[in-house]
């Protein structure tokens, strides 16, 4: 036996027609070790003897070496004699020679264009049906709720309200204030050219109350609460918690989805109003500074000449419906999630994307509708 810790080696010596390969030392897969092909080069002897009399410790690297020798001897039709090698190493090497059983092929890679279009269309159709089904189930659940038959827990709903409403105040406030500031800056570029500095109040007030307030609150909540709903429900689904509810005869829609959607529906108008106020303050802060120098009371009085209750109402109506849509998107994606860690992550992402998409689409529908109604 060799000294412990000696590096792995393989020495080839040619005698007449026989190439003797002597392996020795400690073979470790994590340390450098000889390679059969490098060792042999393009020599083609009559027969090869592989001996392992000086071998120290060994692991899979030796098995790989033996298996490479076997393969080489088969391809070149040269006799290979194995001497003094550990039986276990030979057994390991034999594992590599076995052909793996033929397994059913898994579909991989990108499909061709028609297939891709086809699958996408089918998926889109299925998703639409899925969403419609959830909306339907929620409507039934609503009916049960008003008849007092739903397993709806106000405790859960209030906790959700705190999460999506009160806890969101700092971030909604910050973003709304900054949006008010940027609106005032951008607007001042235009109004100052006409000497109409004071109209900045009208512009910021109207934009914030009708559009940006509800919109910014909704976008923040889509990212904050919609994603959280999808992740929570997705996790519950992966953990079979939703199945546990179903087998109790409790509708997951009544128990999990409705409290969340109701919480968002109730809190969004308040958040939108709060966002309106903070956004107007943001605009006021810029208007009060150089170069506009509009005092706060003047700004406020000017704003009241154009912003009236109907503007605030449209904002609040939009906010409530955005709340519904965010809750619906979050819960829908959560219930749809794959039962895996990756599935939950994808559900959260999809919830935000779907939520924002629904917000923007419905916002433009509202814009047209309010225009026709003259609100």
């Amino acid at each position: 036996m060799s000294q412990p810790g000696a590096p792995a080696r393989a020495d080839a010596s040619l005698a007449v027609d026989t190439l003797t390969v002597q392996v020795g030392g400690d073979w470790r897969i994590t340390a450098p070790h000889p390679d059969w092909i490098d060792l042999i080069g393009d020599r083609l002897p009559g027969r090869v003897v592989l001996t392992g009399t000086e071998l120290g410790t060994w692991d899979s690297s030796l098995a790989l070496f033996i298996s490479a020798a076997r393969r080489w001897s088969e391809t070149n039709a040269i006799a290979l004699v194995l001497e003094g090698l550990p039986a276990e190493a030979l057994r390991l090497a034999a594992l590599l020679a076995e052909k793996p059983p033929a397994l059913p092929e898994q579909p991989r890679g990108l499909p061709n264009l028609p297939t891709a279009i086809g699958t996408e269309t089918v998926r889109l159709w299925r998703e639409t049906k899925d969403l419609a089904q959830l909306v339907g189930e929620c409507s039934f659940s609503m009916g049960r709720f008003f008849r007092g038959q739903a397993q709806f827990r106000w405790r859960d709903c209030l906790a959700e309200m705190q999460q999506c409403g009160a806890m969101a105040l700092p971030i909604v406030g910050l973003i709304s204030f900054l949006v008010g500031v940027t609106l005032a800056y951008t607007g001042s570029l235009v109004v100052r050219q006409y000497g109409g500095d004071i109209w900045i109040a009208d512009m910021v007030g109207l934009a914030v109350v009708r559009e940006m307030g509800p919109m910014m609150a909704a976008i923040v909540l889509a990212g904050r609460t919609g994603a959280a709903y999808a992740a929570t429900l997705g996790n519950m689904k992966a953990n079979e918690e939703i199945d546990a509810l179903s087998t109790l005869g409790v509708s997951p829609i009544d128990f999990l989805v409705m409290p969340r959607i109701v919480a968002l529906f109730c809190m969004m108008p308040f958040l939108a109003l709060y966002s309106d106020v903070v956004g107007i303050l943001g605009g006021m802060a810029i208007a009060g500074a150089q170069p506009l120098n509009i005092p706060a009371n003047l700004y406020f009085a000017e704003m009241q000449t154009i912003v009236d209750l109907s503007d605030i109402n449209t904002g609040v109506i939009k906010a409530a419906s955005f709340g519904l849509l965010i809750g619906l998107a979050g819960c829908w994606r959560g219930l749809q999630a794959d039962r895996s860690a990756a599935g939950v992550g994808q559900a959260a992402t999809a919830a935000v994307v779907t939520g924002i998409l629904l917000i923007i689409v419905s916002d433009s529908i509202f814009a047209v509708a309010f225009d026709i109604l003259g609100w």
Partner: protein
Amino acid sequence: MNPAPAISLPAIEVAGLVCAYGDRVVLEKVSFAVKRAEIFFIIGGSGCGKSTLLRHLVGLHPPVGGSVKYSGHDFIAASAAERKELLRTFGVLYQSGALWSSMTVGENVALPLELLTDLKRREREEIVALKLAQVGLAGYADYYPAELSGGMKKRAGLARALALDPAIVFFDEPSAGLDPITSLKLDELVRQIRDTLGTTIVIVSHELASIFDLADRVVMLDRDAKGIIADGDPRQLRDGSPDPRVREFLNRRGEAVRQQEGSAP
């Protein structure tokens, strides 16, 4: 790692290990040594700290006190570089395989080789094929973990744990969630790996069948004792341990435990 090196230090030597989460001490002054090429079981009832001990042994939690030595090298006091070196000498099979779900089985096994060795791509592929063949998953390299059954995931996890030919492999509840036959096959595989490569095996389990089938030695932990209450051959402990808790655990009876719970306030 065949045959054993000339200097025969124990593969793992634990002395006075104290494990705690915050202020809650789970294990107090645990000491034992695991010989090379031994199949060593850490057993005990639920909540006794088996998994905690395992997590401390593999360095996922720093112990509050005591030492863990691998072949004489101190793991706890090791510098970051030494620690990394030591980490490479052992593999861990987690309870549900813990395969990285975004990679195929082959990529899972190849990742340790890719990150920690200088092997060429061809060699890496051969080792992946070898390891998968060793655990009986030849041909499954291109499957994703989600496409495998529970038992196959564990086998794949084992292939990954074996990728660097570790000197020690830790198993966390290998039979959890497996049917008796699959669990038996996994036990056979574990023995085969020990016999082939002389790997030291440390298994956390409460599966009696596996314990009697495989274990060379067991240590039993107890929740109230916060430490080891028995150490030795499982059959001898079952029939002749002076501690009734040990006999009852290994005989699958519960009189003393029930009495104890009855008398408890």
